[in-house]
């Protein structure tokens, strides 16, 4: 196994053999290897973050040790040399932390963090199919340097090599006088004494343990008069695959040999029967048998629990899951159709069966939808580390508090929400949180605080990023929006508070002018808003100068099936997600007022603009204003409007179908669904409807 890019030449690595290619196909395991490795890596990251704060917490070190250890075993099996070496070195370092030879200093934490980064890079290259592509040499050197310095301080040899003082075991026996006495006694008892040479297979990975097994087997049937090299040398691997035993036993030569061969990895056993005269040909001096292997006290503390959802779960390819969801979607559509037919039918049996099917389908649907739900922890988990590093880079003292990371969301949403959150958190650290001195001057605690919270709000999940920093500056935002020509001066004069803050989400607001290493970078808050809107979500911003900023993203629980209000306009049926519907009503022509050529109604003292749906979509105004008009009051964030439609059809669960990418993005339309009658109805995106 070669690994040109990352070998440490000064160190001998334990010899490893890959799984035989014929017996096991590596690719078969790669996905699960990656998934599980990432869990361990996350675990290491989490534990290390905590360990930084509680360096004395042995439990954490133990947990990290176990994770590194598991990773080592897995990567060695896969033949991912670099991962194996990295984890091996980490294990060494963690061992030193565990036994107290080392304390976790800031520098040491950084070494460990950088090795976790290296691990992550390795996993990424594994994922891309480039085995051992990235060099881990610098990190390995840092790790081993950290180990050596500790061991030097302790006066230990750095590496208990197995090629040190190994002694060839072919020297003749040298017996002490009292041993000769014992052997004579053995002969007197009628026992046999054999001289055994046992050769352990060269590719045995723990030959000392094999030797131990041989000795243990022999002890069961007789007495070991002498072992050469000594048992303690065998234990320390100070032998060269072969060792000798002078053995007293009542059993036959053949039996002794077969007992030894019963043990795996025994290459060869040679036996010579000793007679009394032979005993005295050997010279004097040598080792004395001193009992059995010393038992090393066990260091494991078996109490901590690995934070993992691995146990009792099945990993399923997400594409299989999506197929299932699609099939259930089809079922839901057909159910709707059947239920409609059932209602029209005079046959009670059919109506009843249709209703039953309706219920079962609903249960099936909600069960299947739950399969798609994953805790947002998956995304949140990487943030503590990120905020720590950002804060460190910027010389700010920041604490990230995470609340509600067990909140579940559709997996496709979880997969896409990471990037916007990264941006919001970066902004919070970069622009929101002040330096320690500024904070002290403002009478705040020196440590900045960012709270990341996920919680359920009806059929939405709200994710809130709240910092206690300096807050947004209204004047600066307006000034910049004017400079970028996002608003006119007249518009600027009318805007206040949240309306000003939301300007930062406008396209082109964030510019190269403020490219720091952290925020900026061309992608601004407009990108955040775009992703959130793509997910049918909403984003709100609140800020108090000097007190902090609070950005809330609201996302639908699921993307695939939603409850919607069906309406008709201009002969077409449209679906409005119920989350956007605040009420339905019939508006009488007399209640409609004109303000600045905009038709509005006054509803419970609130002035709401009216938008004829057909006109908004197709620019044609076909509404009859002289009678009662059905209207749907829709909300999108802080915005409210009354959509004027032809007919209100009622609520229904609909399966969201994406529109073909050939069509591009259509303003005001979120997608399509198929109605019970087989026709396509468009789903409105209220946030982009004007």
């Amino acid at each position, binding site marked *: 196994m070669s690994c040109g890019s990352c070998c440490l030449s000064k160190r001998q690595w334990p010899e490893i053999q890959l799984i035989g290619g014929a017996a096991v196909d590596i690719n078969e395991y790669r996905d699960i290897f990656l998934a599980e490795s990432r869990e361990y890596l996350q675990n290491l990251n989490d534990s290390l973050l905590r360990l930084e704060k509680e360096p004395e917490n042995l439990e954490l070190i133990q947990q990290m040790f176990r994770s590194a250890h598991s990773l080592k075993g897995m990567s060695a099996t896969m033949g991912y040399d670099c991962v194996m070496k990295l984890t091996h070195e980490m294990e060494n370092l963690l061992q030193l932390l565990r036994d107290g030879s080392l304390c976790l200093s800031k520098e040491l934490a950084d070494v460990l963090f950088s090795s976790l980064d290296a691990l992550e890079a390795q996993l990424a290259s594994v994922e891309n199919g480039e085995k051992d592509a990235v060099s881990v040499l610098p990190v390995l050197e840092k790790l081993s340097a950290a180990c050596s310095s500790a061991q030097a301080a302790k006066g230990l040899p750095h590496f208990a090599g197995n090629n040190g003082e190994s002694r060839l075991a072919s020297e003749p026996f040298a017996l002490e006088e009292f041993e000769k006495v014992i052997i004579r006694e053995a002969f007197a008892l009628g026992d046999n004494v054999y001289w055994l040479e046992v050769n352990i297979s060269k590719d045995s990975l723990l030959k000392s343990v094999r030797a131990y097994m041989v000795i243990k087997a022999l002890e069961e049937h007789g007495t070991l008069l002498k072992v050469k090299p000594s048992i303690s040398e065998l234990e320390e691997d100070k032998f060269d695959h072969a060792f000798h035993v002078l053995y007293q036993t009542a059993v036959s030569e053949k039996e002794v040999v077969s007992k030894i061969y019963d043990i795996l990895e025994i290459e060869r056993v040679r036996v010579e029967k000793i007679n009394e005269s032979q005993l005295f040909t050997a010279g004097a001096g040598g080792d004395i048998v001193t009992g059995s292997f010393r038992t090393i006290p066990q260091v494991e503390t078996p109490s901590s629990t690995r934070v993992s959802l691995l146990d009792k779960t099945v990993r399923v390819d997400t594409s299989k899951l999506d197929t299932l969801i*699609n099939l259930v*979607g*089809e079922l839901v*559509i057909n159910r709707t159709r059947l239920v409609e037919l059932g209602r029209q039918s005079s046959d009670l049996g059919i109506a009843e069966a249709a209703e039953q099917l309706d219920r079962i389908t609903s249960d099936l649907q909600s069960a299947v939808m739950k399969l798609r739900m994953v805790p947002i922890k998956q995304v949140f988990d990487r943030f503590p580390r990120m905020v720590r590093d950002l804060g460190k880079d910027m010389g700010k003292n920041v604490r990230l508090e995470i609340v509600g990371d067990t909140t579940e969301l559709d997996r496709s949403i979880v997969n896409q929400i990471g990037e916007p959150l990264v941006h919001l958190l970066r902004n919070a650290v970069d622009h929101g949180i002040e330096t320690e001195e500024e904070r002290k001057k403002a009478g705040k605690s020196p440590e900045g605080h960012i709270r990341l919270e996920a919680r359920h709000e009806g059929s939405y999940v709200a994710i809130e990023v709240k910092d206690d920093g300096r807050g947004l500056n209204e004047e600066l935002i307006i000034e910049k929006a004017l400079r970028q020509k996002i608003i006119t001066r007249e518009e600027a004069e009318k805007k206040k508070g949240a309306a000003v803050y939301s300007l930062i989400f406008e396209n082109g607001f964030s510019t190269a002018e403020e490219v720091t290493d952290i925020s900026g970078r061309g992608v601004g808050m407009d990108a955040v808003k775009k992703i959130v809107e793509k997910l049918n979500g909403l984003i709100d911003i609140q800020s108090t100068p000097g007190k902090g900023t609070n950005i809330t993203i609201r996302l639908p629980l699921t993307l695939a099936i939603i409850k919607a209000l069906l309406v008709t306009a*201009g002969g*077409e049926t449209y679906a409005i997600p119920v989350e956007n519907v605040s009420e339905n009503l019939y508006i009488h022509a007399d209640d409609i007022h004109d303000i600045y050529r905009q038709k509005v109604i006054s509803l419970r003292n609130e002035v709401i603009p009216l938008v004829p749906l057909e006109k908004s*979509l*197709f620019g044609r105004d076909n509404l009859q204003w002289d009678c009662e008009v059905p209207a749907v009051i829709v909300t999108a964030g802080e915005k409210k409007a009354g959509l004027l439609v032809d007919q209100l059809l009622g609520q229904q669960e609909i399966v969201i*179908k*994406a*529109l*073909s*990418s*050939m*069509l*591009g993005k*259509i*303003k*005001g*339309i979120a997608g*399509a669904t*198929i109605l019970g009658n*087989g*026709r*396509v*109805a*468009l789903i409105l995106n209220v946030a982009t409807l004007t």
Partner: protein
Amino acid sequence: MSELAKKQGLQVVVFRLSNEEFAIDIQQLREVLKYVDITRLPQTSHFIEGVINLRGDVIPVIDLRKRFGICEGTIDARTRIIIVEITDQLLGLVVDQVSEVLYFSGDQIQDPPKGIIGDKSRFIRGIGKKDNRLIIILSPDMVISSEEKVELRELLPEQEAVA
């Protein structure tokens, strides 16, 4: 037209728009549907008629008459929606009538005409000639991917446009 098609010939489905005969490569054809109700789409190109439900998939439909600036025809029993596959996505094309499946040998296919008013040859894969018929073999992907306005007469071979 690819060299391969010129060598091996091409099997096409022939359809009518107004008085002209067009064709598409049968490899790109998924199926032919009778006209169904189309759900209108707002704020898209004028020639995008809307979307239809094809066994649970929502697919866009283009009215080829509108695409090529032919005055609107009436929908009758012969109107068809041709479903074509373009890079793994389905697209419906409304045509007046689907008439037959034809085979053009390599020498019966000409390259798209060049040098006519505003080169629209990109919309055409070739011109099939058989028994005094001239059939325009369309390149359906250009029909939707390009916003460029194209008039029927711009697609027609020169001799016919003159005649």
